């Protein structure tokens, strides 16, 4: 009951945030030089034609009225239509959003086990050999450009070994898993180090806590103390970073999506920016923002669930 009220209030708070996001996006878009129609009708169209079509889409109305029309439709749940494709933005989002969501979740699935394993491993003997190796590898992974790693993976795992497809999304769930493996792996390469570093230090901090000593004095033994006390306590600080990263993954998905020709939101979004497809950018940004908010919210709920101190 209490959590429910919490959730509701948070969602209510997010309304002005979304409004702010939409305003910022809109301002950015209208101030971006470049004419969507020119890109739409192609190189050979004459200026007259363009003028006519601009007028058709009401792109010459004053900016404020444009925004309020948009907002009005938005409140009725209408995200408008793509200037490029003339299909409803909601349709486009319905088409691309699941892919990116799948990609992000899949990445997380691939990321968490190694993060836990590695950080536990290196925390066992801080500054030991394993720890150092993990750190260095981590930094290397972190410092390699994602698109570069992606290309190499595609050529090696996809072409040379032929283990995984190098593009697309597939149609069935198993296919999704196969097609998105390399993209997710590529993502993991730089996310794992970040989270590992964080969880490792959290573990080390917690291992020096008094309650560890207390646990040992009960004769629980190192491993049980670690499992039942140290680990749960260490997860908390990492959770928040995790939320930030998930948000970043959503927004940064464009790179892997481009490298692996994954038909996802990131690509849609960037293409739409380049094509000045205002309403798609608007809609997609809002969906992204909402997702981020939900992720943050669920992380808060989760940590409230783990840590009794949070909501009291």
């Amino acid at each position: 009951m209490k959590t429910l009220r919490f959730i509701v209030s948070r969602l209510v708070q997010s309304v002005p945030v979304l409004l702010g996001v939409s305003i910022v996006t809109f301002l950015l878009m209208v101030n971006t030089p470049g004419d969507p129609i020119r890109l739409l009708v192609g190189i050979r169209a004459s200026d007259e034609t363009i003028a006519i079509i601009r007028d058709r889409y009401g792109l010459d109305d004053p900016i404020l009225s444009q925004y309020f029309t948009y907002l009005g439709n938005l409140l009725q749940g209408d995200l408008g239509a793509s200037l490029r494709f003339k299909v409803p933005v909601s349709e486009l989002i319905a088409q691309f959003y699941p892919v990116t969501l799948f990609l992000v979740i899949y990445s997380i699935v691939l990321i968490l086990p190694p993060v836990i394993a590695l950080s536990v491993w290196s925390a066992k003997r801080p500054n030991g050999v394993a720890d150092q190796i993990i750190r260095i590898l981590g930094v290397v992974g972190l410092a390699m450009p994602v698109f570069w790693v992606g290309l190499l993976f595609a050529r090696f795992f996809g072409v040379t070994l032929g283990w995984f497809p190098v593009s697309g999304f597939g149609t069935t769930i198993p296919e999704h898993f196969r097609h998105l493996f390399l993209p997710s792996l590529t993502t993991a390469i730089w996310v794992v180090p970040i989270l590992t570093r964080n969880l490792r230090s959290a573990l080390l901090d917690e291992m020096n806590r008094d309650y560890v000593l207390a646990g040992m004095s009960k004769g629980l033994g190192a491993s049980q103390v670690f499992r039942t006390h140290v680990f749960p306590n260490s997860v908390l600080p990492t959770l928040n970073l995790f939320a930030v990263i998930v948000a970043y993954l959503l927004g940064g998905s464009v790179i892997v999506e481009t490298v692996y020709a994954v038909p996802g939101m990131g690509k849609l979004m960037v293409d739409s920016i380049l094509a000045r497809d205002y309403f798609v950018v608007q809609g997609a940004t809002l969906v992204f923002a909402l997702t981020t908010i939900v992720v943050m919210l669920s992380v808060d709920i989760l940590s409230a669930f783990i840590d009794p101190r949070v909501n009291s």
Partner: protein
Amino acid sequence: MSALLCVRNLNVRFGDTLAVDDVSFDLPRGGALGIVGESGSGKSVTCRALMKLLPQTAMIDGSVEFDGQNILEASETTLNTLRGKRIAMIFQSPASHLDPLMRIGDQVAETLRKHTDLKGREVLKEVRRLLEVVRIPEPDRWAKAYPHQLSGGMKQRAMIAGALACKPDLLLADEPTTALDATVQKSVLDLLVDLRRTQGLSMIFVSHDLGAVARVCEDVIVMRKSKVVEAGKTRRVIDAPQHEYTQMLIASHPDRLTLHTPQAAAHAPPLIEARGVQVRYGGRSLIDIISKRDGGFPAVKGADFTVQAGQTLGIVGESGSGKSTLARALVGLVKPAQGEILYKGKPAQPSGRNRALYLRDVQLVYQHPYEALSPRMRIRDAIAEPLRRHRLCPTNEVPARVADLMKQVDLEPMLGERLPAQLSGGQCQRVAIARALAMDPQVLIADEVTSALDVTLQAQVMDLLIRLQKERGLTMIFISHDLAVIRRLCNAVIVMRHGEIVEAGPTADVFDHPTQEYTRTLIDAIPHLQEAAL
């Protein structure tokens, strides 16, 4: 009675520092041994070595024979069959020794689950019983609670319950009562004493407070600089200490300190006066405003008192009594919701426009010696800061003034270059005082300045304050939970509870003929050296 535990030539070294130097003692079955010493004396390390609960970096030798079995030789697995089952341990600051994410009941049950083959319901029943043993009310309710929901005393009880779970033969108590309020401290001590009687528990009781030890143990060893300097029957050691360190230790115990008789405050006009001061924490929420409630919770409810010039007023009370809040109101860190503060008869706004001027006269010294100093600021700069900021003296004289101030508080000049972290607690406290004196105040408010210090340091700091007061004719407001200290320093005292002043008057009257029940319990709770063990 054969010795349950005998320790021979125990040495513990971390790197090249010797933490425990050749310690030997016996503990008879059912006996209780106190280990007394100041922080860094190696008493805690000794205690932990008995369970081999030291980091890998520690190099231990000597022998610890528990019930004929050498602990130091034993493997982790064997140790884990002993720990918690036959030797149990309780610690200082229960707050940090309980896992914040685990329910009290489960933390108690952990030991049971590990060492007994009790299952499901039985475990719950046993937990319930244990919580009752340690006198936790409504055990079922508290078993489901999380540590942060319990009071300090209850946490400590819960920890004890966990320690007792498997009816251990030996209980190691490492400063179990430090950092607890006097009354709570007393109740825990009583509990331990009681447990010894009822459960026939053998006990090693580590503490810096000889009084507390005296209450529980018949034998005591005194440690200093990781050596045992004296050992024997508690009574004997207290009455006839051999080693001069022991003597100093006992001498600096509040019981033994000669009461300093403050000059009867002349009928000077009150220097500081509080009229119905009320402080609230937490602002008014919308609901509060609608329902005409004040909102927040009152930390101080209508406090009235006066302090004459040259007088020393003591404010006593347990944590949460609002005494510190009151102090902060006096220096404008919190704004009173109601009431006013008069200084020299005129209303003063400590948080108002010309606070700087007022604060030159009224200074506050804080409780935690380290935290009160900016960690990245050299001592010299810290003391010079107010001089420079308020241009209290020409810039070229600043170094001289600083040196002078440091001398006044007995700090070697060479310490000036150090950072707080490189100083001892006592030294830091002196720096804090010196910094306050830099403003050349009329009134010095000392908020628990001694409570974080070892007894000997405590005594020194108190001496310093007394001296300063004499030299500078300071007016002092001395806040402490330690009545012994108050009694020694102050010529008037206020007893606070739940934000209210329950009793006030000249120190002697209040202490010798308390009119309030609460005051009496507070006074009774003072651990005295003459407590008889058992």
